[in-house]
């Protein structure tokens, strides 16, 4: 019985450590082509990781001459075969909206509430980062 106690204590400790490690902010990713201050240069900004129950959502935007030219989903929920499918279906629609509206004010894709919501929030944080830069 004492062995069980140790095993449980060890598991709790390891779990806590793993979670603590994973909650550290990531090391800054090298932003490509950040050298020249010319308008013709495309710069990328990484949005925040937005968790939901199916997994993380994170986007990276490309900005050229003050315009949003591309949105790329870096992280999408991997949970539940169903969730992945929904994400795959929803992401192109969300990207289309974002490029059209040039903002993070997007409509929710039906059936993909979590992905839409995470996408919106990550996109907003990326746009904020681009404005601040």
């Amino acid at each position, binding site marked *: *019985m004492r*062995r*069980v106690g140790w*095993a*449980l204590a060890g*598991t709790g400790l390891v*779990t806590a450590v*793993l*979670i603590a490690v*994973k*909650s*550290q*902010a*990531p*090391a800054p990713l090298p932003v490509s082509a950040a050298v020249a201050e010319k308008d013709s240069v495309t710069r990328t900004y990484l949005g925040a*990781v937005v*968790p*939901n*129950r*199916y*997994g*993380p959502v*994170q986007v990276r935007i490309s900005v050229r001459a003050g315009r949003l030219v591309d949105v790329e989903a870096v*992280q999408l929920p*991997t*949970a*539940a*075969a*169903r969730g*992945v499918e929904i994400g795959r279906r929803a992401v192109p629609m969300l990207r289309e909206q974002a490029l059209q509206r040039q903002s993070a004010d997007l409509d929710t894709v039906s059936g993909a509430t979590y992905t839409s919501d995470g996408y919106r929030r990550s996109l907003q944080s990326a746009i904020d980062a681009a404005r601040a830069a």
Partner: protein
Amino acid sequence: MLVRPSAVDTQRAEYEARFRRPYRARESVDAWRAATIAGFWAGLSVTLAPWWANTPDGFLSDSAASLTAAGRITGLLAGYVLLVQVLLMSRLVWLERWLGARDLLHWHRDLGVFVVALVVAHAAFITLGYAGFEQVGPLREVARLLTVDKYEYMSGAFIGTGLLVALAVLSMPRLRRRMSYEVWHVLHLSAYVVLVLAVGHQFAIGQEMSAPGISRYTSMLFWCAVVAAVLWGRIVAPLRMNLRHRFRVREIVPEGPDMISIYIAGRRMRGLGVRAGQFFRWRFLDRHNWWQAHPFSMSAAPNNDWLRLTVKVVGDHTAGLRDLRPGTPVFVEGPSGDFTADRRRQARALLIAGGSGIGPVRALLEELPPRTVVLYRARNAAELVLRAELEMLAQARDAQIWYVIGGRDEPGPRRAFSPDGLLELVPDLVRRDVYLCGSAGLVDASVIALRRAGVPARQIHLDPFEF
């Protein structure tokens, strides 16, 4: 032909010839044992690899995400340990050889508590985490999981958790002692149902297992391997052995007050790979006994003609064996156990037997090297069974037998089973392997005395049953 202990005098020469056979060579499984245990821990950490790979840095910034992560970690571990639990009880011969029969039981018992804690933690953390994402209360979230989200196999997972907790409660010694072994065993077999109920939600909606990928396929492979091991160890292997050997009761011989020996013969006995000190689960297929399997050690080293078990026929568990008839078919599972001569670490051995524990000890004596010492304890001289046989065996194999007669608290036995008393009887005690078989009281007291006298724990071998 059948050699009966009651007829030994007339067959002394034949007996001595048989008893003078070579002893069994030593064999170490330490490396296998270490590898098995290392494999278990390695598997446990590999289980977490997909979670680690799929969780980006900085992802767990809020409490809902952290709780969900704790739920995923405990869930992955629980799934793995649950499979290990089933594997441990699959009666695969190698596993028992590498880990040891007694350790196998202890691992199963300890991991049982561990897995129940993991499953409960998994359910609690996931519910709390999801509730955090939804910003609802935990009870509301449970209702949501089952009704709104309608996750596939989620109701199965809930039922499985309930069953597992119920099983854990029933396995607590205080409750278990109130049940007969058969009732408890049948209840415990419902653990397989838990396994089936649990697997659905793992592969349908598990974060790391539902998406196609290496972790999904590795988990499925492990799952299939465990199912195959159970089918082989519990069904195919026993059926094969019984079809090959077709065991039958050959003769019943009274040995003493309430003690009988059952001789069992079969076909092709020469090919039965079995060592002295091992046990079988015997199921006597007559009207009164078919429904229970008795785990009993053999009370003589295996030979080419018969197997023998010597049992005490008191209490409702074994009383039915008194009326066994020769010719009754026997379904046999085994052999199991590593209470065998090849596990010794020293050149010489000491055997300690109490009451009916003499059976496996008597068998072991036949495969141990010369100058073995036997300590045989009984309440009175009439309860010493197999005595003529033991003495002849001792003579043929140059062994020494000490009978310790009397109740546990009488001065004689107390002295004999104290550290000083043991050293007096067996001065080179610490350089011997000690094999113990008897009532729990005798075994526990002896182990304490042996350890005090300086016998290393690895030289103490206990018989695998815990009555």
